[in-house]
């Protein structure tokens, strides 16, 4: 399999009040196309920062990040925004749906940046909502949906543009056990059936168990050990 994501000697440090706080220390990571990787580690270990670097919403202090053949550290903000719109689907812990928009409108948001016609957008939104099992809830606003359903709408939004890469930051962190199970099953399906490369940050070992590979971070260091789950 080809390499989807390659991080070489990536370090990240934040400066707060003239203090430099290192978050990631010389991380080297390779993720294959079609892989479902879970990043685990205690709070403050740098998981979300690593995820943000892969997703192109933050820049490394040093090192290079290559995603699907594109060195994203070299892109300016406009190019990076376009790249994200075309390449990455995002799933957040708190769903980040727009409360005044229906499920349909929320899923349609990333498609507004494409050149698709209204009919084509409608078709893609309906397909995405069908995949997550919410075809009958298109007109519902987020406050008319449960937490699990809201996260499924967020997943539909993430796959609406059919991106090659999906990044998920604690996708089950705000859900009950059953809803979390549904979400992980859905992500697993996206990985296996639709061949999406998925990088997920989680605290939850049960959620991590759905990933094909689990990597651990500790105090900004990516540990060498990795768990591979045989069912993938």
């Amino acid at each position: 399999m080809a390499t989807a994501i390659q991080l070489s000697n990536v370090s990240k440090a934040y400066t707060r009040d003239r203090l430099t706080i290192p978050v990631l220390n010389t991380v080297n990571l390779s993720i294959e196309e079609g892989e479902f990787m879970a990043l685990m580690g205690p709070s403050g270990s740098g998981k979300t920062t690593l995820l943000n670097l892969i997703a192109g919403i933050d820049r490394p202090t040093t090192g290079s990040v290559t995603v699907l053949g594109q060195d994203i550290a070299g892109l300016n903000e406009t190019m990076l925004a376009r790249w994200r719109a075309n390449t990455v689907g995002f799933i957040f812990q708190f769903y980040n749906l727009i409360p005044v928009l229906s499920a349909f409108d929320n899923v349609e948001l990333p498609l507004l940046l494409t050149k698709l016609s209204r009919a084509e957008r409608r078709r893609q939104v309906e397909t995405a909502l069908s995949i997550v099992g919410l075809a009958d809830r298109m007109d519902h606003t987020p406050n008319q949906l449960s937490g699990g359903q809201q996260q499924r709408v967020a997943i539909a939004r993430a796959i609406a543009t059919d991106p090659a890469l999906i990044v998920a930051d604690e996708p089950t962190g705000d859900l009950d056990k059953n809803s979390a199970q549904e979400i992980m099953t859905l992500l697993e399906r996206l990985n296996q059936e639709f061949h999406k490369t998925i990088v997920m940050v989680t605290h939850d070992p049960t959620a991590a168990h759905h990933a094909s590979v689990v990597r651990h971070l500790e105090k900004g260091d990516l540990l060498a050990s990795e768990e591979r789950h045989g069912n993938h």
Partner: protein
Amino acid sequence: MEIIKIIFKNLFRHPLRNTLTMLGIAIAVSAFGLLATVLTSWDAGMEAASVDRLITRQAISFIFPLPLSYRDKVAHTEGVQEICALNWFGGVYKDPKNFFPRMACEPETIFDVYPEYQITKNELETFKKERNACVVGESIAQQFGFKVGDVMQVEGDIFPGTWDFKICAIYKRRDKNTDGTQMFFNWQYLNERLLQESPDRANEIGWIVSKLKPGANAATVSEAIDSQFRNSPAETKSETERAFNQSFVSAYGAIFTAIRAMSYIIVIIILFVLGNTMIMSARERTREFAMLKTLGFSGMQLSWFIAGEAIVMSLLGSVVGTVLLFGMVYVVGELVPKQFFPIFFVAKSTIITAALSAIVVGLLASIQPIVRTRKMKIVDGLRFIG
């Protein structure tokens, strides 16, 4: 299209707050519009004043009369087509509060010189024939309930005694810029009585209105008139009607400046009200804007979301305010005697200014949230807890 849909949906995110903001804008716009209407009403009086009519009066002051003999001399001046001599009569109709201009005039020419006051041929004939006939404007007729045939009894002050005037016509205004509050009666009626009761005051006129021939130069004709009476006991000053009216209005310049300043202050208040709402609204949505940036929305697109919302809110407030303004202008027009604001209506320019102000205020109010949103790093925005 979708962006507009999202902008409108966002307006219902905080219905109470946004409704209150819009109402605040509406009230401010109506107050702004009312002040602007007062100003434009004054200006409309100026605009209505003709530039092809000259007013010739005593050079020392308007209150001193001119000899009747001046009338024919002015009439024969090169460039003058028609003239009408007038006298300010004053007087009290029932109560001193019932003020409206009452003037003695020459029935033969008054409606040629002032074609904007319109009466029928028959009415004009009656006005010419009947000594105590008078013509009143439709606004005054409406205010006091005058009908043709009514007798209006006026107690004279400048010209003492009781004066009966029979209303023979109610003149119509040619357009809404025309003053409908005047009352004209026959100068002969005044003069004949003065000849009997105060002969020393007879055969005098207050001022002469000259209608210029087409193409005549107002300045040249003014000079030609005034030069005839130079070094006489009653020198004259001739000027266009507009300049004459402006000399009255200029006395109120400070008041107009204050009204104008007040209207600008109101616009600034709108800006603060809307700015406050937009800042709060954008701050609450920091995570949402970060999410949109994450999805690939550019800073420019987010700027349109914010500015569009502010402009729509401001314009909606402005529309409601304009509707309120029409109501307020109607009420003020009914309550305030017509003679204070003979011409009082919402000008197109007021509506356009209100709409443009709403757009500008919307843009200005969204500057801070736009700058903040554009500067915001996605990672900081996603972590934001409002």
